[in-house]
């Protein structure tokens, strides 16, 4: 039993350390350091020795002294095994091993005798590994997007692995791609159109959705059950089956290449989910408050304006943000309806740029950063509202 859990502990922990060191090595390679070997087997054995050492010493030494001495010794071993590199890399290795040694502080020979210890070890390390794995897999493309926008096409063709940024040079050189896409590719205009369309969609959607949601939530009328159950069904119908008829009708009405056309379509496609989200919230408002409003002689309109809206501001905010994000990120309709560069939205403009193989990739990535950044900032800042929106809206995407 003890032997089994010991083996599992050694294996799992050293695989974890190996992953940490490999990710560090990959990220350093992208800073222009010339590594060509991950040294998997040697580093794995190193990891086993380190884990074993830490386990055997256990609590016999002061924790700080223990981890610092082990880390120093093993960093030196690591240097000996691996290729030479600049000093900041060794400092990073030192920190990684320090982090690892600290993380395994709970493990000692006695701990291995407990029940289910091998399962617990695996779960612990999967958690640790999972955090690093998910963070790396998700952030890596975003990182590449950002750093590519600061590089040049020629430099990247010479060495596709060198993403190091030279901060010593002129800052205007570093941000050159951003100046270029604003000057030559008219991105200022596209930002304006995208903002106009997204904010317009939010306002019109709310104007239509709030009264409708109130009617569904509160009033009795013929066909209510049918309507409220068909909202979600309508929402499930995908944009791709609407595209051809809308394209034909919009061409004949002259609504293609116009902001108005986009506003109509975006509003209609976001309305069902907006109504669904709002009516759920309206139902949770106590009816007595409205009755008081009726007593005061308010009309239905007055009740909505003076009672319902002020009371449901958080829900309205989350609907607004959610609709804004859908409209800002929307691509299919802007692809179909816009073919004149004068009326492009940001997404369509970036897609248009990629159509030209000559467009250097740093411009594309600078454009991508510009279209991504507002959404991510809004998301981080208003996360609380947005998450509730995402869960209630639940399914779009």
């Amino acid at each position: 039993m003890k032997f089994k859990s010991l083996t599992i502990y050694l294996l799992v922990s050293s695989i974890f350390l190996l992953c940490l060191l490999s990710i560090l090595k990959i990220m350093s390679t992208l800073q222009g350091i010339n590594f060509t070997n991950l040294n998997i087997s040697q580093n794995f054995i190193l990891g086993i020795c380190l884990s074993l050492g830490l386990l055997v010493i256990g609590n016999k030494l002061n924790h700080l002294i223990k981890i610092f001495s082990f880390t120093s010794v093993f960093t030196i071993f690591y240097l000996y095994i691996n290729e030479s590199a600049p000093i900041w890399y060794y400092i990073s290795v030192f920190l990684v091993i320090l982090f690892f040694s600290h993380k395994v502080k709970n493990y000692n020979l006695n701990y291995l005798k407990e029940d289910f210890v091998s399962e617990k070890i695996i779960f612990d390390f999967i958690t640790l590994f999972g955090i690093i794995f998910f963070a790396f897999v998700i952030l890596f493309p975003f990182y590449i997007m950002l750093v590519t926008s600061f590089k040049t096409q020629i430099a990247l063709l010479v060495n596709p692995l060198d993403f190091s940024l030279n901060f010593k040079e002129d800052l205007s050189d570093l941000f050159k791609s951003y100046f270029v896409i604003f000057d030559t590719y008219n991105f200022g205009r596209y930002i304006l159109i995208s903002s106009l369309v997204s904010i317009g969609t939010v306002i019109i959607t709310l104007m239509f959705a709030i009264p409708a949601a109130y009617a569904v939530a509160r009033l009795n009328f013929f066909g209510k059950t049918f309507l409220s159950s068909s909202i979600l069904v309508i929402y499930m119908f995908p944009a791709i089956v609407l595209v051809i008829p809308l394209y034909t009708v919009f061409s004949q009405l002259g609504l293609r290449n116009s902001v108005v056309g986009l506003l109509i379509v975006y509003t209609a496609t976001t309305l069902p989910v907006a109504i669904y989200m709002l009516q759920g919230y309206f139902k949770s408002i106590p009816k007595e408050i409205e009755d008081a409003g009726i007593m005061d002689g308010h009309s239905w309109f007055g009740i909505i304006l003076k009672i319902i809206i002020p009371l449901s501001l958080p829900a309205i905010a989350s609907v607004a943000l959610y609709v804004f994000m859908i409209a800002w990120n929307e691509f299919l309709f802007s692809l179909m309806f816009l073919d004149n560069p004068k009326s492009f939205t940001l997404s369509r403009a970036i897609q248009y740029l990629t159509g030209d193989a000559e467009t250097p990739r740093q411009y594309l990535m600078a454009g991508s950063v510009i279209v991504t950044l507002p959404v991510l900032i809004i998301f981080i800042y208003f996360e609380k509202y947005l998450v509730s929106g995402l869960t209630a809206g639940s399914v779009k995407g």
Partner: protein
Amino acid sequence: MSNTLSKIEKRTAYTLLLPAVFLVFSIILFPIFANIWISFKEVGLKDIRIPEPRAKKIIKYVSEDKSELKIIYKLRNSSLIQKITDVEFKDKLPKDIKPIDLDSRCIFKSKIIKCQFGEWRPKYRENFEILVKNEKNKEIDKKIIKSQKPNLSGKSDNILLTTNFTLNNFKKVFYENDFIDLLLTTFYFTFFGTIGAIIFGILAAQLVNQNFYGRSFMRSILLFPYVGPVVALAYTWTLLLDPNSGTFNALMVNFNIFDEPINLLGQKYMVMNIFGFELKLRLALTTVIFFEIWRYFPLAFLFILARLQAVPKDLYEAAEVDGAGPLKKFIHITLPQITAIISILFMIRFIWNFNKFEDIFLLTGGASGTRTLPINVYQQGFAISDIGMGSAVSIVIVLLLIIFMFIYFKLIGRKANEI
């Protein structure tokens, strides 16, 4: 009394609902039915432009004192295939200027030239000339005449409104379109994309449900791929996976994991040799599925996390007292708690992935064996310019969708209300 009140209530309800219902009807429900109409017609992209009579105005002086000039109208029918009938022409002349020897089809009355051109056949062209003269023999300003635009109108048949129907589109969809392959690719993409997103969602939710430093930050990061704009993310991936100078291939070659760069998005099959068995992997499709998982597992994560946080803690404590390890706790407590939400997620994501267009279009454009039904709608309608065919494929999608929704509401509809 109560009767009138309920009447007022009804009327208010309809007034409040009308704008939203009208908009949704005209933009979402009308097109779905319009698809049926179009799918039974042979319509190309070029047919949906309404033929227009057009005129371009050219002006030349004919006398030396510039008091006489010739206006040439280059008239044409904008359509190459459809005729226009009852073409009417109107143009206005400035004060004191009159036409000389007006064409017999035209009349001049109170400064306006009005002409009846009758029928124009497809591709019709004519250079129509009018000589005009200033009555007071003064110089005529070219710019004033040029700035006045002629007004043309005419009648034409709208091919969409005729009643000729045909079944050819559906025949083509089923027999000339690799329909089986199309369907299989769509299901492969949908099924594995959905399953993968849910598995990663469970893992991530299980992870974030534990206590560690930076947990709320981690939750935000996990949602990044879902909230980011698809265009930016898809192009970043394309760049990353580019076989010539993409970071991914460069890294793999650098560390000797790959012998040579692999075109992950442009190669249809990859032959793998596992224990002597030759396995043909649909490479580009698999890559697209991975993108799909990467982008949509956050949604599954969000739902499963919300459910996990509602699981009472004492369940786990009781299990611990009974001597259950982490694995047993996961299988016997966590999994039963999340099966309902997983089945709902599966159905919803299945329907959405089934309709996914943007991701595949931006990554591969439907090439290298990634042609799914929605991509086919675009290819037929806009790349091959066969609107009727595109509509027919849309109809197939809608029918399959209705079947899925029926299953969804039959099987899971009741469960969904319980949660």
